[in-house]
Every structure is written in structure tokens, then in C-alpha cells.
């Protein structure tokens, strides 16, 4: 239903295949400030991987490296490789805009386009990527459905995006990201600015989405991480050191029987 100029982002492989992201030896700098060091992490297809850990250890920075948003910051640089189904997204023939279409992002503070209508917001990604559809109404309905917004907004599609509640705005952002048919969805503390009901709704949405989209989520809410994710990566930072991963494991083991004492301290609330 949605067509891309497929031959152009062929460098990134099949756009509809389940997507695994593999980070290897990733470092990040802002200027000379070394903020992330030696990150190696595998995020399997159609699963939810959560990145947990105290503030300031570079989880969000790492997330932004995954969809090439990190390089938009002046003075930012990185090292290492990120592979989408084996293809390095920082390769010489790969365009950042193609990467961002395949790997979408939902931000901590909902950022719908306030002057556009709800339908306009959902379709905005298509326009930005040059994707075409013969049936925009169907795309809007499908995406709002998947984001759990259809019943609430089906009669109010022409309301401006800025006029919705916080939880609705965030779900609208999710719907907007889904319209371009990404393979991976990155979520940077998507519920931290929302009330518990909206949070629950979004968590339900994530569990439904994971059949078609790989999800990587940064969260400070450990109960949330326990509820929704399949695997967890615990980030930590020591003073004067770049942030790094302490432990990676299945959610169950991280929370019940972590290998590293620092992980145990964190998940039991003793710091962070």
C-alpha cells in the first residue's frame, strides 16, 4: 500500500524483513568528552530490549547512535559499528535519511507537529521520505489502530496535533513513526512525561507492535522494564569514565539473579 523508491535504499537490505540490530565496540564523544565506551550489544528481531541504568550514563546517546541522530549534534563523533541485519548503517553507501526511515524514534517529550491535523501528522512521515500511497485514509486508520488511538480519534482526525492530551500526543507520535513502516522502533523514555493510564496503554501497544517491529527502549522505570522487555542491558558510569554496559541478560535473570553486584544494587533500588 505504501511504496518507496525501493531501489534507492536497497543498500540496507530487505525493508520488510525482521530486523536485528548489532552494536559492536561503539564509542561516542561530544567534542573531546568521551561519553560512551566499548558498547557491544545485540538487539534481536521482534523482541523488546530495554536499556536501564542511572541518569547520565549515555543510554540516550547510544539510542541516538542507533538511528544516526547523534551526528546531528555539532562536535559529535562516534566509533564502532551498528549493523542492521548485518549491514553497517554507517557504511559509505548508506544515507542517514534511509537509516532513520528504517529505524524510527519516539521521544521523551511528545513532539507531534502542532499545526498539522491528526491525519496530517500520521502522513507527514510519508511526505518526508518521499513514500507514496494510493489510500492515505487507510494508512491513517491502520497506524492509529496499531497505536491504540483509532477509537478515540476516528471522528476527530482534523483536530490539530497540538490539541491532544499528553498520552494521546505520544501515541500519535507512535502512529506517525509506524506510517513509514520501520523495521525498528527506538523509544527514549516514552512514558516518563505521562500519567499511569497512558503509560499502561502505551505498554500494551508495544507488546502488540513487537510482532512486526523490533523495539529498543530506554527506561528509568524498572517495573516497566520488567513488564515489557525480553532482554535488558544495564548501563552504568563511573566518575571520569565513559558510560558502558555492565551486564546484558534476559529480563528475568537480570531482575532475579544478576551476575554483577552493581546490577543487583540498581535493580533493587539501592541507587540510581
Amino acid at each position: 500500500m505504501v511504496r518507496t523508491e525501493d531501489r534507492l535504499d536497497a543498500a540496507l537490505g530487505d525493508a520488510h524483513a525482521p530486523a536485528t540490530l548489532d552494536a559492536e565496540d561503539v564509542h561516542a564523544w561530544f567534542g573531546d568528552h568521551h561519553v560512551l565506551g566499548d558498547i557491544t550489544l545485540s538487539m534481536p528481531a521482534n523482541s523488546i530490549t530495554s536499556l536501564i541504568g542511572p541518569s547520565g550514563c549515555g543510554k540516550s546517546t547510544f539510542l541516538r547512535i542507533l538511528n544516526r541522530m547523534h551526528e546531528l549534534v555539532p562536535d559529535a563523533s562516534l566509533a564502532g559499528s551498528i549493523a542492521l541485519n548485518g549491514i553497517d548503517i554507517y557504511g559509505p553507501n548508506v544515507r542517514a535519511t534511509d537509516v532513520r526511515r528504517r529505524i524510527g524514534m519516539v521521544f521523551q517529550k511528545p513532539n507531534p507537529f502542532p499545526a498539522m491535523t491528526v491525519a496530517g501528522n500520521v502522513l507527514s512521515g510519508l511526505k518526508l521520505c518521499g513514500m507514496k500511497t494510493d489510500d492515505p485514509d487507510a494508512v491513517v486508520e491502520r497506524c492509529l489502530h496499531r497505536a491504540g488511538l483509532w477509537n478515540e480519534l476516528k471522528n476527530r482526525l482534523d483536530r490539530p496535533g497540538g490539541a491532544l492530551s499528553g498520552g494521546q500526543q505520544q501515541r500519535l507520535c507512535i502512529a506517525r513513526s509506524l506510517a513509514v513502516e520501520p523495521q525498528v522502533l527506538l523509544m527514549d523514555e516514552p512514558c516518563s512525561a505521562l500519567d499511569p493510564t497512558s503509560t499502561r496503554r502505551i505498554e500494551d501497544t508495544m507488546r502488540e507492535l513487537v510482532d512486526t517491529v523490533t523495539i529498543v527502549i530506554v527506561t528509568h522505570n524498572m517495573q516497566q522494564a520488567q513488564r515489557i522487555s525480553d532482554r535488558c542491558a544495564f548501563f552504568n558510569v563511573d566518575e571520569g569514565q565513559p558510560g558502558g554496559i555492565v551486564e546484558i541478560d534476559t529480563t528475568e535473570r537480570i531482575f532475579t539473579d544478576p551476575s554483577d553486584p552493581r546490577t543487583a544494587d540498581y535493580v533493587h533500588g539501592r541507587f540510581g
Partner: protein
Amino acid sequence: MVVRTRPDRIFRRLAASAGALTLVILFLIGLFLCVKGLPAIKDQGWAFFTTQVWNPPPRGNEFGIAALMWWTIVVALIALVIAVPISIAAALFVTEFAPRRMRRPLTSLIDLLAAVPSLIYGMWGAAYLRPRMVGLSAWLGKYLGFLPIFKPTTAFPIYGPSAFVAGVVVSLMVVPIVTSVVREVFSQVPPGEKEGAFALGGTRWGMVRAVVLPFGRGGIVGGSMLGLGRALGETIAILLIVSPLFQIRLNIIEAGAIPVAPLIANNFGESSGIALSALLAAGFVLFVVTLLVNVGASTVIARSRSGSGVEI
């Protein structure tokens, strides 16, 4: 209720008087021009607003501002049509596309355009630009003459001292004004919205179209209105470039144009009595029009989504 000491009360009253003085001056300007210009309007009646010729005593007895207002608006419009797209491009360049080190130098250069006195623009326009635009004007008349603004009105048209050339020169004066406002407005786009557009896979221009331009609409309109106000009141540069033509005419590339302000400057020396009163009446009309445009511009900018933090 705050109890203030006497020196403080005096201080506050002094400051308030300074603020009120601005209003007083504006009011007086309007009052004096109106009162001194009234004899001329009484002399002609409503015809003052519809007559095209300017033939006051002692030479004649018929004068009106129709042609003057026509050319005032025409020259200002030409200047805006040229300046606004250029200003938007420059503002986008400085805020979105330029390498960071280029931003301040380029902004300073554009501001320098605003510092050059309009007399210099006029002298350069008359001596350097005008002769060089004759060729272009002739070409426009010949090949695009089907458009009413270029259609020749005589068999052997004279090009040079035209509204077109004046408009080009005035546009140089308007660009820094519009650019300054639009640049300020563009720099206040919420970064979250910009990130949202990039995260969807948008290119820089795609992001500009989806986020920056809609956000900056109020600033663009307001900035253009400020530029319009400037263009409406421009005197010396236009005076040095055009030759007067007291006639409403669609063609802008042929010689002949006469906005209000240049006329006043030109005729002032030799006018007295009713003729002088006529100039003052025309000046009053110009004052009112520019006042409305400028206040309108401030309102548009302040009310727009982008404008609440903008200094113009």
C-alpha cells in the same frame, strides 16, 4: 499599596513622562501635518484623492495624490517581491544550512546593508545600476511584453529612470530588515519538532518545509510588513533614480514614476502657500499609512506563534 519615597515618586514620574513623550510627539506630528495640510484638501475637495496630475498654484489649479499613491505602492511592491524571497533564503541559510563559522560574518554583512545611507544607494543606483539595467528593461519589454507591466506604451520607449530600477534599489534596503526578523523567528523553532522531522527520515529541506516555515509564518508576514513600511517611506534613493510621471500606468520598466516621499523632497524648495500645504497633506497621508503598516507589523509578529520573544 506600595508606599514610595518622594525621590522615587519623582523618578517614576520622570520615566513615565519620557514614555509618554513618544506618544505626544507622534500625536503632534499627525496634528500639525493634518492642520497645515487641510487648506490644500479643502481647495480640491475629494478630488485630492482621485486626481493624478500635480499642478498646484502658481502654475495650475489641479492636484491630487492618486498617481503618487499608485507609484508609492508599486515601487514598494516591486521591492518586496524581490526582497522577501531573498530574505527568507538568507534567514534559512543562517539558521539551518550554513556552517556555524559562517553565521555571524554573514549576518554582519547583511546588517551592513542596513547601515548604508539611502543617499548612497540612490547615488549608486543612478550612476552605476540604472544605465546597466536599460538592456534588461528593453529585453523585458521586447520578449515579455505580453505582460501588462512590461507592455510598451509608446513606439520608442525610454528605459532607465523607472519604478523597476527604484524597486530593485529599495529591495536592497528592505532585505536586511526582513532578514533580521525572519532570522530571529526561525532561530526559535522548538528543537523537539525539528528532531521529530529528522527522526522520520526527513532531509534538511524536508524538515524546513514541515517545521520551520509553518512555525515562522507569522514572522515572515510581520517582517515583510516592516519592510513594506520602510519601502513606502523611502525618499532620497528613489528621488535620485526616477523621473516624475504624474500618471497611473501599469508599465514599470519605462521611465516615469513618482511616489509621495520623493515628490515632497523634490518640490519642497519651490513650494509655498497652497502648493506647500498640498505637500504637507500628502505627507500626512504617508504618515498615516506607514503608521498603520508598522503597528500592524508589530501586532502580527507579537501575536504569531513564533513572535512572542522577538525583538524587532
